[in-house]
């Protein structure tokens, strides 16, 4: 399993090349091109703002900024998972002809979506300025959150990518699971709005601490709760461990199955 990680380093040039290709391919041929990277989260934000803020009259200050704080990391996670699920299957042609470690493919997907996430940060900054939100020293914690989320996302993507090769139903059901998961996360609502009796059960959702951390740091200028940070660390370590174990276990079967 350690070898799995060592190979990420050895093949970093390949990851880089694949990420570049992924990002370029995504918007090639479209008129707005790279602008879509910025437009996608904005459109998401617009839709949720319309439904929840205008139609359902949710009372919250800075609701648009709040949405954006949760949406950006969520899009990183969900796009990584849905694209990563088919990463091995689609990369099969290459995998059959050239030797390279297969974990490179999901890793490139996660990295490409991370770059997309980073490209979305400037929009967030514009909104923070627009609404005159003050951001403090807690910003130093942001890289830590991102590293954790990277590990968390990579672990889950490895898991889904490996499992999808053997169980082709997974990519089909994944979209629905992701929609469900989205509404279980405090992205369109505040975590404090969850009714008391559900909180203990829902606190098992491993992505809540991440979302809350982003919101605390970027919007509320407070440091995220220590419990949340600990949970985040545990979740990412666990995801990465299980993901890479499963992936390493199935690794040699991919080239025969795809």
């Amino acid at each position: 399993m350690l070898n799995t990680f060592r190979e990420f380093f050895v093949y970093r040039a390949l990851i880089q090349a694949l990420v570049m290709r992924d990002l370029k391919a995504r918007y090639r041929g479209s008129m707005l091109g790279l602008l879509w990277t910025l437009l996608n989260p904005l459109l998401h934000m617009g839709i949720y703002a319309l439904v929840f803020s205008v139609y359902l009259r949710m009372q919250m200050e800075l609701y648009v900024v709040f949405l954006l704080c949760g949406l950006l990391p969520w899009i990183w996670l969900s796009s990584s998972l849905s694209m990563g699920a088919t990463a091995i299957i689609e990369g099969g042609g290459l995998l059959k002809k050239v030797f390279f470690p297969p974990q490179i493919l999901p890793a490139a997907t996660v990295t490409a979506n991370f770059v997309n996430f980073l490209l979305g940060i400037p929009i967030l900054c514009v909104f923070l300025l627009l609404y005159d939100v003050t951001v403090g020293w807690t910003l130093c914690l942001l890289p830590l959150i991102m590293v954790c989320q990277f590990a968390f996302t990579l672990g889950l993507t490895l898991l889904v990518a490996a499992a999808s090769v053997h169980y082709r139903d997974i990519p089909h059901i994944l979209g629905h699971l992701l929609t469900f998961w989205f509404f279980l996360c405090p992205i369109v609502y505040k975590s404090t709005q969850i009714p008391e009796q559900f909180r203990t059960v829902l606190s098992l959702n491993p992505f809540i601490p991440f979302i809350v951390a982003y919101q605390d740091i970027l919007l509320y200028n407070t440091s995220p709760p220590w419990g949340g940070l600990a949970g985040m660390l545990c979740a990412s370590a666990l995801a990465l461990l299980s993901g890479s174990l499963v992936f390493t276990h199935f690794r040699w079967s991919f080239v025969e199955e795809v």
Partner: protein
Amino acid sequence: MLAIEAESVSKRFRRQTIQPHTTMKSALVNLFRRRGSTAEEGMFQALRGLTFTVRQGQVLGIIGRNGSGKSTLLKLLAGIYRPDRGKIRVCGRVGALLELGAGFHPEFSGRENVLINGIVLGLSKREVRQRFDAIVRFAELEAFIDEPVKTYSSGMYMRLGFAVAVHADPDILLIDEILAVGDETFQQKCFDQLAAFQRLGKTIVLVSHDLATVERWSDEVLWLDNGVIQERGTPRRVIDLYRAGVVAQEEKVALAEHHRIADTVQEATAMEMSNRWGNQEVTIVAVQLLDAAGEERYVYRSGEQARVVLHYRVHAQVEEPVFGLAILCGDGLWCYGSNTDIEEIALPPLGAEGTVEIFLERLDLIAGTYFLNVAVHARNGYPYDYHHQLYAFTVKSELRDVGVFRIPHRWVIKPLLSVPQ
């Protein structure tokens, strides 16, 4: 020094049989059965305990019929597959030319694809940049390098793939049947590049069905059959053995096919066969082709002796029966035909049954598949039993002459003037 060392390497695959009728129930049963069971019947053994070594700088040719395990072996050497049993040690950077342009993205330009493909093949970004011009020049694609590769012709695509692959600078080159790239000039370039590799002392493992290519390039040839090493040694010897093996196999298949037809002929007395007709007063019950030694055989070398034996049976008294034989090309062209009437052969009383043999002193036909027409009919042409193209045989030849029939000939060249000094 050894570049490749393989020690009792075995590889098998799980059969992925697709059932024509999958029900919910059988799917569920399979779901549970699939995991633990690696029962023998569900597996396909591709390689069975191969042991061999390749010295550094050696060119090893691998030959064998389709499905003999050649490509699987190359993929094992490339590290794409992992052997189930045994060990493979490879010394140096492996460049696998299993498929040219593997992983080219159709939407990307040649330039972008060269960069990615080069990195996939193990070069660093800087190395690709340094070699970029050489790659493009080699592929002869200077004018199209910024076009997306989806607009490339298949030749352009493969040229670019080959160019990147050879510039990836491997120590061990694995080649699977890809030297047929592009036009004459480019092919020559590929062979020149291969020769350059050879001069540089790189190890090359070459899989090909083109035996002439294998013989020309290899220092040693390995013949793989059904997942085991059948023979290994000097190219000439192994290739000759392989050819003999292929002919023996073809003979077996041809014999089996002939017997299958012969069985139908015997069963189908009621004239159900579309290429057999006649009133059955005299029938031809079996047709055999025998070689000089009297063995039944349906694959011949051009110029060999052969004998056609017709077994007949008389069911009713007939006046003046005539036996005939014709040899036809695959496209229906009559190569030769004759009968006992044309040649005024006096037939003795036929009795209840017997044989008619036609000795063909020399089968001077060019290489190809031929069909036999055999018939017994009345002198006026009224058919008793006519077998139209029911039987086939193959003629093999080393010569690549053309036409139908090789007229026995020799060449005499007589220069009349001496060369001016």
